[in-house]
């Protein structure tokens, strides 16, 4: 069983730590675009686009590394350990 985080917490983290990003809904995932770069794999959640789903935290580890978001910023919103 993979560890999870709440999607709303991811959005709050991105609002604070990656201001100016765009959230682009796709049929099976969210894309996050920032300064011309795109992280393609933020899941919708296990049951699709329901409100504030749990998503596997590893996808967000990949995201914060991709955009090089400082741990000091994201850890106020998410436990990605």
């Amino acid at each position: 069983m993979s560890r999870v985080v709440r999607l709303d917490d991811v959005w709050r983290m991105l609002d604070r730590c990656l201001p100016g990003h765009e959230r682009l809904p796709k049929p099976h995932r969210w894309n996050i675009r920032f300064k011309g770069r795109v992280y393609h794999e933020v899941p919708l959640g296990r049951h699709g686009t329901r409100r504030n789903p749990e998503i596997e935290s590893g996808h967000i580890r990949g995201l914060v590394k991709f955009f090089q978001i400082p741990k000091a910023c994201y850890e106020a919103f998410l436990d990605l350990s």
Partner: protein
Amino acid sequence: MMTEEIAPAIGTRYPLLFTYRDTLFGKGFIVEVQATNGRALCVREADGFWIYGINPGGMSAFGDDPDAAHAAFRRTFSGILVDLAGDARGFDEFRELVTRFFEDTNEGYEAEWREAVEAVQRGEVSLEGVEIVPANSPRSIGVSVKPVEQLTAQDNSANLQYLLAA
């Protein structure tokens, strides 16, 4: 099966190279995408095995073992190509989107990928049944129109091979 006989320690990292071929439909075209020696980092995390793309950098996947994680990574790669085909207004734009996707490096994990390569070179890390190849194997992405008369039954099969970089 490409699995460890002994469960690796949490934090163990495997530098992977993968080669995929996809055939898919876009707006008015059939296209073949050939990704050669893409880079990815497989990490034994507390909850299982995660694969983080290096090139392409903007994706990740999870599995209970390296094979399962790689199968999920492969499915996600194809799914993203389908998304890009849906975004593109024509073949040229699709090729540009795919190239940008593949070449965009996850620099946050790239140093760990290189450290993992060195660990494989020292013989500290291996995956049973997985071939070791040079880490500097040339990487490329090819996107080409696929004429209908060139389609074969092989276009239906997904290739699932991955290799360990050293």
